[in-house]
Structures are given as C-alpha cells and as structure tokens.
C-alpha cells in the first residue's frame, strides 16, 4: 500500500495507510427539511502510509466533510473507511485533526493545551517528558505559560499542530490549517509542516484552497467537484523535494490544475469560465 514519494531519511514511521471505499454522505438542506445536499457521492480514495495528499476544489465539494468522516466526527451514509486494518467508527486519538482556526482551549496555557491529548487519554503522568519535546519541536518553549489569546496566528497554529502530534497519530487531517495566515507566515509554516511530516512519517491529508500549497507540499493532489461531491481527478506531483515554487515544472503543473478547475483566465462572457467559488 505504500505510495510513492516517501522521503528517504525518516526518524520515525508513525503513519498508517488509509482507505476510503465508496463513501456517500448527505445532509439535510437548511432551508428545506425535505431536501438533501449530496455532500459526498461514492468517493473512493487510498492514501499510502506516510503519504501527504492534498484535497482541493471549490466550496461545497465535500473536502471538509470527507475529513470529518475520516476523523470519525460524522458517520457516512454508505461506504467504509479504514485506517490500516481498523474500520473507522468513532473519533480516536490516532487520527488527529487541525482546523483553520487553531481552536486552542483558551482557558489552558500553551503547555496545557499541548498536554491536553495526553490528559484526555489519561497518560499524562507517564508521558510528561514528551511535552517538552513537542514544545521544542514547534519552537514554543518560551511561551509555555502564555494563554492562547497572546499568541499570533502562526504560533497558535503551531500549538495546534503540537497538540495533535503529541498523540502520535497515524493519520493527521489538516483542514486548511494555514488558510488564515498571511502569505509569508504561511510559506514558512508549509516548510515546518513538511519538516514534521518528514521526521515523523505521519500520513497527512491536507484540505486547501491554495493550489501552490498543494503542489509544494503533497505527493498527490485530489481535485474534487461539488454537487454532488466527487473526486474528479488525482494528480501525481512527482517533483523532487525540496520543491522550487518558481521552477518551470511547478508552474506548468499549476497551470494544468487551474485549467482543470476552469480558472485559466477571466471569462469574457458570463458562461465562460465556470463559477468562481468563494
């Protein structure tokens, strides 16, 4: 099951493969109780252990729904989800989730936020030493006693990453984790996430709106379409790492994806380039 693009030197191999088999999910339409929104329609996807896969597509294509199903926060109407040989039935510490909003617990200090996962599993006492390691890993040792509202967006997102990683998840689900950051912080954080990924070998699934981010980071890019949410295409990135954001191959791939998403240029008529989703 192990896919391509596994980096050469890994310290750890925590990741596990992920299989999504013919998964469908409906939601009731908010304004019409009889109506149903087809969030996902028979979606199948296999992600190898330690693979980093991006999901892109316009709003409403079911990217976040798919992530919530993998996290176990929602249950599919049909189909199966597997991590390794285990079916997904409920949320678990082996599938970490990081949102666009860091969602740090505001009543806990940075250190306690990072400890939260250990505490929730009741293993804080035996694994307390690791907390320091993870704070160092994300470069926040000097902020241990700060409360979240004192942190900048980038720092808060680093805490959120550390909080998810301290449980050594087999799969890390990233729902536009860098979407709220400014462009420079975002590029730096992309490198940090890649460093974490290479060091730990965690399987990562990244939902993003940013095509550059998807190309820069992932081994494969899954392009989804809305209504009903389906996988339209899967693109192998195949560029050597570390990737150059302005290399011709990078830009060519970017152009291809834009074309697939119908964003090649401003349409002259209203019919021209498909709807621009916010």
């Amino acid at each position, binding site marked *: 099951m192990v896919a391509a693009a596994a980096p050469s030197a890994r310290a750890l191999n925590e990741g596990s493969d992920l299989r999504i088999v013919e998964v469908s999910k409906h939601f009731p339409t908010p304004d019409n109780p009889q109506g149903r929104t087809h969030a996902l329609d028979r979606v199948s996807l296999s992600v190898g252990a330690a693979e980093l896969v991006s999901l892109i597509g316009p709003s409403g294509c079911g990217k976040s729904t798919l992530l919530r199903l993998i996290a*176990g926060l929602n249950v599919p109407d049909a189909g199966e989800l597997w991590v390794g040989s285990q079916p997904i039935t409920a949320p678990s510490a082996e599938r970490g*989730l990081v949102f666009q909003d860091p969602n740090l*617990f505001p009543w*806990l200090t940075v250190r306690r936020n990072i400890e939260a996962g250990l505490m929730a599993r009741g293993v804080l006492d035996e694994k307390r030493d690791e907390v320091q390691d993870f704070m160092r890993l994300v470069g926040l040792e000097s902020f241990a006693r700060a409360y979240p509202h004192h942190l900048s967006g980038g720092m808060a997102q680093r805490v959120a990453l550390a909080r998810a990683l301290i449980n050594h998840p087999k799969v890390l689900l990233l729902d536009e984790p860098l979407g709220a950051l400014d462009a420079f912080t975002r590029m730096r954080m992309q490198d940090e996430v890649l460093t974490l990924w290479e060091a730990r070998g965690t399987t990562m699934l990244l939902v993003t709106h940013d095509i550059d981010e998807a190309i820069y980071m992932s081994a494969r890019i899954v392009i989804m379409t809305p209504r009903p949410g389906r996988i339209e295409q899967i693109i192998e990135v195949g560029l050597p790492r570390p990737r150059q954001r302005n290399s011709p191959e990078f830009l060519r791939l970017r152009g291809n994806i834009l074309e697939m998403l119908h964003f090649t240029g401003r349409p002259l008529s209203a019919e021209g380039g498909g709807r621009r989703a916010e």
Partner: protein
Amino acid sequence: MNTSSVQIKEPVSLAVPTEDPNHLALPAEAAGAAGAADVRMRVGKLLAVPVTSALALAVHGWVSRNEPSVDPRFYTIFLGGTFAIGLLAALGQVTWPGLRRWMNHMCPILAGALGLLILWEVITSGFRWLPLPYFPSPAGVLQSMVTDRNLLVESTANSLLLLLSGYLLGVAVALVTGICIGWYPLARYWGMPLLKVIGPIPATAWVPLAMVLSPSGRFSAIGLVALAVWFPVSMLTISGVANTRASYLDVARTLGANQKYLILHVAIPAAMPNIFIGLFMGLGTSFLTLIVAETVGVKSGLGWYVGWAQGWAEYGKVYGALVIMAAFFSTIMTGLFKIRDRVLVWQKGTIKW
C-alpha cells in the same frame, strides 16, 4: 475651532494641582500635567484624608456645642483615628511604593467619604433639617453601633452563616442542574420546563411555604437563599455548557477525549465566564432573600436586627446595621470578584467587566 479648544484646556490643567481637597475630584485631568504640578498633586492627594478628617473634627466640635445630649466620644475617636492613620500613611508611603500606589488611587475616594460624613453631620445635628428620631447624626449612629456591638457582631455572624451556607448549597445544586440540563438532551427535555416554571418565582414568595415546611427558621432561610441562587446560576450554567463551541468538542474528541473529559475539561471551563455571571446575579438575589427571610422567619441576623431596632425606634441602630450590611455585602462581592479574576485569568485582556 482649534484655538477655542486650547483655551478650554488651559484653565482645567491649572486648576488641578491645588492642595485643596475639594479639587481632588478631578484626578483624570492630572495625568498629562507637568512634573512639578504632578508632585504638588501627589501631596494634595496624600494629605487629603488627614485634612478632611481635621475638617470633620472641626465641624463636629462646632456642632456638638449645640448638641450636648449626644456623647461625642466615639465619633471624635474615629475621626482622630482617620486623621492619625492618614498622616502616618502619608509619611509611610515615602519608603513603601506599594502603599503610595494604593494611596494615589484611594485617597481621593476616602476623602470624599469623609466629606459625605461632614455633610451628613451638618444636615442632621448642625442645621436639624431632618426630623430627629429618624435621622440621627453620624456620631449618633456610631454611638449606637459601639454600645450595641455584641448583638451586632452576633447578628452579622448569623447572617454570614446563613448567607454562605445558603449560597454554597444553591450554587452546588445549580451547577449539577445546569451541567446536566446543558449537556444531556434528556435532562434538558424534563428539566428545562421545570426550571422555566419554578425559577422565575421570587424566592421570597416561598416564605409562607418555607415556614410551614421547615422545622426551624434558620433552616428555611438557608433553603430560601439557596433557591434564590439556584435559578440564575442554573440558567447561565445551562447556556454556557450548551453553547460550548462545537469545534472545541470536536478537537477534544480527536485528541481521544471521553465523555467525562468533554464535560469536565471542555464544557465546564468553556462555560465558566457564563457561570460567573450567574454567580454574581445569584449573589445579588441572595442578599435580598437573606434579609427578607431574616425579617420574617429567623430571629437573628442583620435583617432581623433592623426590624427589631426599628420596633424600639432606635434609628441609630437601624443605620448602624445598614452600614454593616453595606460593608458585609460589598466585601463578599469583592471576594467573588477576586475568585473570578483567579479562575478566569485566561480572559485577562480580552474581556472587561
């Protein structure tokens, strides 16, 4: 337009740095004043309490010459005490920066309080504008408080006991009710209507029932105070727990949290700001209920003392009890604020109230 605003500004900044305590009510304008003015300002502030005390003593001496019937001793001692303490503090702040900061903040307001005493005395014993048995002078009130101190201390202790046991009982029950109703849909279905029907009845309306039901007045007073606290604290706990941000719960679940962790470590801390609003509201209603319950049922406590003193037309004692109530309730309120600041330290800088 510009010149006119400058002209307005000028006299204000000149008026502030005087040593006359009457001008100390304008400390805000002094913030931008120059260094020399600042020092004079501070001297004025530091001496405000002894100066006002001396003024009050002078007024008292003038007034009690017309009024030999009131024994002036205690009030004179009190004002002498504030004079001495004020003077000592003004000297002590030279070596104690913490005291200086406190005095810088508190002296104007304390001097203002003393000024009110002067006004009170002038109106009552000075000009006798108010009918006497009902409106004694501050000296008369202090006199009554000191002579009746044993009963007052006992009443205060009794009130404190009733209030604290009632309040804590009410809060404990309310937290359990609130968390259950806020978290479990079944508890919400059955509990919410009950709360909505019973809760809004003022606790004091239960007095007749409480007197029938409970073996002792003391017990019924505790029950009534608890009931008064229960409703607001439950309501706000429910809204706090039920409105826990879904994403906090989602994150906690993906971190491996079980139900117990979600309630204890996510929903309750998330609800804490709301719970504290309920605690403050409950404290207000508990004061009210306590005094009413003591007046009608229990034969002790400050509420009872007020009624009893009024029965004997001893209005000095009535006001004495009111003074103690004010000090007593505001101390408890301050204590709750301190607890709030400790518990909600994570909100510091984000929320002000």
